[in-house]
């Protein structure tokens, strides 16, 4: 039978309860204690009920003390629970200890099976190999860029309306909108040209594959994070004709002799003249189908003769050097070659998909 409610009884009760909580040594015991101390049949609950029959002044005073007691006991229970959980984790981990330096390979039971590269990796490797065979060097650049590399040095000054096409995602780093997730692999052009000017190592013949980011709602044909490959040639006497020839040579080397490329006028601030390049639809081989919108062609990427303003930004003399650049989606190549119906399968990592390639 619990003692009647009074200030002294309450103080004594709380002190005793807190002691019991602190000395609980197992989480199961603590759970039982929690039920006893705060449950429906606990002393405190009984006292709460008793409050109603007291006169108002006393009820107020004791009610406040009672609430404080509730809080103190619950806090102590929670704190002890965290402590015990931590202790039990410590014990479990200690019992689990293993010295990795003494492990013996023979003990490993591993099934005999070959794994698989990701389809995008495979596509990227194949593209790289085609370009290496054509004399290009494969280089890379960072995924987080400053506004300068992603836009401004590419003749896309602040406020330029063409920036709107990029669906840029910004990072909460430094000045607002000054640090971006690169929206294309073109910043690698700028970095490579800056480095070549610094090291006096022009000409440049390179491709730069890598991950890029666009703020776009993902669907069957769009991913927020996808992969591009960028090409850059800076040399003497390079013209639009070299660009067209390179695109066409690459297309038949990668997609096959019966697939050809065509260039259409387009606009990119960093190239002039600029072109969109299409290839023969890989599904219908040019016979016109639904996938190519009954045109016989599929859009692959963009390209152009490097705009002299880009050369100026990186300090290359346009009277001595000229060049071209191109870029297209690696995932899109995989899509065209393997007819991936939904690009989201590329990032779902279902092993039934991964095992196919």
């Amino acid at each position, binding site marked *: 039978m619990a003692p009647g409610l009074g200030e002294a009884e309450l103080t004594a009760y709380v002190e005793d309860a807190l002691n019991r909580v602190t000395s609980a040594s197992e989480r199961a015991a603590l759970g039982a204690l929690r039920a006893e101390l705060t449950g429906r049949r606990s002393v405190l609950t009984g006292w709460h009920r008793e409050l109603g029959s007291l006169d108002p002044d006393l009820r107020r005073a004791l009610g406040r003390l009672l609430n404080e007691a509730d809080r103190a006991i619950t806090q102590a229970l929670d704190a002890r629970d965290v402590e015990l959980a931590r202790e039990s984790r410590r014990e479990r981990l200690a019992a*689990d200890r293993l010295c990795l330096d003494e492990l013996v390979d023979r003990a490993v039971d591993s099934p005999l099976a070959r794994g698989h590269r990701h389809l995008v990796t495979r596509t990227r490797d194949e593209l790289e190999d085609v370009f290496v065979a054509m004399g290009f060097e494969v280089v890379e650049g960072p995924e987080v860029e*400053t506004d300068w590399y992603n836009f401004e040095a590419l003749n896309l000054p602040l406020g330029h309306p063409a920036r709107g096409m990029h669906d840029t995602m910004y990072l909460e780093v430094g000045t607002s909108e000054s640090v971006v997730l690169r929206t294309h692999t073109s910043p690698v052009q700028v970095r490579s040209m800056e480095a070549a000017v610094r090291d006096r190592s022009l000409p440049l013949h390179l491709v730069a594959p890598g991950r890029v980011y666009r703020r776009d709602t993902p669907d069957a044909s769009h991913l927020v994070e996808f992969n591009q490959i960028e090409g850059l040639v800076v040399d003497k006497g390079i013209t639009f004709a070299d660009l067209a020839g390179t695109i066409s040579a690459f297309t038949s080397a990668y997609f096959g002799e019966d697939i050809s490329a065509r260039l259409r006028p387009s606009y990119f601030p960093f190239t002039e003249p600029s072109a969109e390049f299409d290839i023969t639809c890989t599904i219908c081989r040019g016979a016109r189908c639904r996938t190519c919108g009954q045109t016989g062609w599929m859009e692959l990427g963009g390209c152009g003769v490097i705009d002299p303003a880009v050369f100026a930004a990186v300090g290359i003399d346009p009277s001595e050097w000229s060049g071209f650049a191109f870029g297209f989606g690696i995932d899109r190549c995989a899509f065209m070659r393997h007819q991936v119906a939904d690009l989201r399968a590329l990032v779902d990592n279902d092993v039934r998909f991964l095992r196919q390639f």
Partner: protein
Amino acid sequence: MRVPLSWLASYVPLPESLDELVATLDDLGLVVEGIEHVGVGLDGVVVVEVERIDAIKGADRIRLVTVRDGSSSVEVVCGAWNFEVGSLVPFAPVGAVLPDGMAISRRTMRGVVSNGMLCSGRELGVGDDHEGLLVLDARTATPGQPIADVLGIDRDVVLDLAIEGNRPDAWCVEGVARDLAARYGVAFRAVEPSPAQPSAERASASAAVEIVDPDLCGRFVATELRDVVVAASPPWLARRLELAGMRPINNVVDASNYVMLELGQPTHAYDLDRLARHAIRVRRAAAGEQLELLDGTTIELAIDSGAIGDTGEDLVICDGADVPIGLAGVMGGASSEIGPATTSVVLEAAWFEPIGIARSAKRHRLRTEASVRFERGCDYSNCDRASARFVELLEMSSPDLRVIGKPIDARGELPRPAELQVDAGAIEAVLGVRLGLDEVARLLSAIGFHVTDRDGALEVMAPPGRPDVRDAPFGVADVAEEVARLHGYAALPTRVPSWPAPGGLAPVVRVRRAVREALVGIGALEAWTAAIVPAADAILLGDEDERIRLTNPVAADAPFLRSSLLPGLLGAVRRNTERRQGDVALFEIGVVFTHPSVASTARVERGGAGGGELVKLPSEDERVALVLARPHDDAHSAVAAWRVLATALRLAHTRLDPVAGTTPLGLHPTRCAAIVDASTGAVIGHVGEVDPDIAARAIPGLDDGRRLGWLDLSMGVLADHDAIPRASEIASVPSRYPTSDVDLAFVLDESVHVEDLKAVLGGAAGELCESVECFDAYRGPGVPVGSRSLAMRVRLCAPDRTLSEEELASTRAKMIDAATRSLSATLR
């Protein structure tokens, strides 16, 4: 931009074949993104009069309607209720195919035969109204008349063109026609409105215009009109607007929109009587000024967004009391909107500084038909023509309007069109082909360039509508592009360039490929997970405070950049577990990011406006991570996987050390090791198991007691041949003499590393040592607590002889002695 062919054909003769036209437009860089055939599907649909309406037994939503087309009657079941006996409605007989492709057939509903269908506006492709039938006006429709005649719908084709950002001149019907005429070499009929006849009298309070900020407003032409009657536009004009994708509003607004679609010049009509003092001022907005726009929203002006390059400036049009009545070039204000009671109009045809308009439109998230044109740069010389054309169009529906005086032509600062000299060699240097100068001149003149031949070179002046064309030297590329475009890209020569330098892979690419091959070789599948990750991933690892946050993530619940590949790979294991295929080994090679404020050394790069500052950026660390989730996987298989990798990469001196300092997030604290290069001390990564608590939280369906092996390596360190020396490239030819094994078990303090014991034994055996291996470890009875027993096998061999028993015994003794002295080992 939607362009009806009937409209386009009024400026240039079009080829017979639509395919050819589409191909030509594509080839001009005016990409056809869609082709819509309108006015088809109305064949056979006629006007009928409702004769009687009967209820259908047992049906309360449909009725039987008898209609008459003037000569005969038919019965149709109909679910609409917005008509009565005597109404005129459209009727599609059995056999008709409606614009949306619906074929009308005879149907029986509730035992009643329906011989066709009565149509709503939407079913006929003329508006969105689907509430009921399209009830026709008895003044314009008679029973039996084809519906296409009543609605004035001719067959037409609407092309949806994608106009590139550098072609503001082509963002109108006339501009498209100009390009086509240039390509086909045919005459182009420009819109030439007859100049408005100003009324002789001047109103007492005529409009006045003041450009306060001439740097942002280069031109403002104001035309004052009186006695305007606001009414509906002529049907042909309304129809063209509809085909072009704009909703007709009233004759004043429609004329303004029509001029924009036709000439590319946005205009704005103000109700003159609602402008204080009948005056207009164009000025920068003061910070915090408010403006209620036509769309009913109220915006706060000139508030700096803090974004790089944003000046926070807005340009506003104000009335004579200096109260803003419009956001210049973007949207007009509500206060001076044209309404049914409007009789006096002042029309704005202006030129605004493009970047300023782009900033305002972006900051206020108001992308309007006007702003997209102004921000690309309009042709300021078009303002007069646009104003006159507006008056000409409005007069058709408001014949008594009066033009008061000559338009006011206020000027600010206008850009000067590019002027440059171009010769055949300059074009050839860009295009790789020598074109005749007369051909170049012909092509450029056809699209409005001013070209003069001067001693074998061309003096070229760009039209004001081509702000994308720059002065020399950059402008040569712009002119070359125009020439190439009109000449046809396909008609230019191609050449495959070659150079003496060989191609090749960057070193890191080569190492990455080797790593991937090795992991694929042990049966792992390569995954690709997102770098932008959910908050839950950060909470799982408990590092949300240090994460890099995106300002504008696609999904609000995925706001972070990843700091580890672990949560992504665990997510992939989880999804596969849910699909009952969780016995997997998955690896990923990808970048993780560290916030510059917590990075040991922040990455610093060129950035800021103009690239003039050094900016601290997140560090990027490319990782190779492998999660082993097959039934018997654990730290053993992770270590074995690492050894395969180390062998594949020919790493010479790596060893597994206890983790120094705090355990990396997510790693099992007592079953992990750091992978270190013994010669340089470089840390390559970590190996072990995933923290069981984290694994259980990340993969709810994970089998009880299943361990997840884990390997996480830095690609940067792996690819660094200085940090991680490779094994010697010099081949060693194995001895042809027999080898002998010496097995030794030592009891050592736990702190003695197996690799150290190997080194001591190997050193003691000297050049006879072929390999040293640990084949067992033991703790328990007979071994003191804090020590372990390690069983070692040393394989001995001499290059030139079989080892004698004496040699073996003395080597064994040397090894025991060395281990005892230098490692305090006890032989068991």
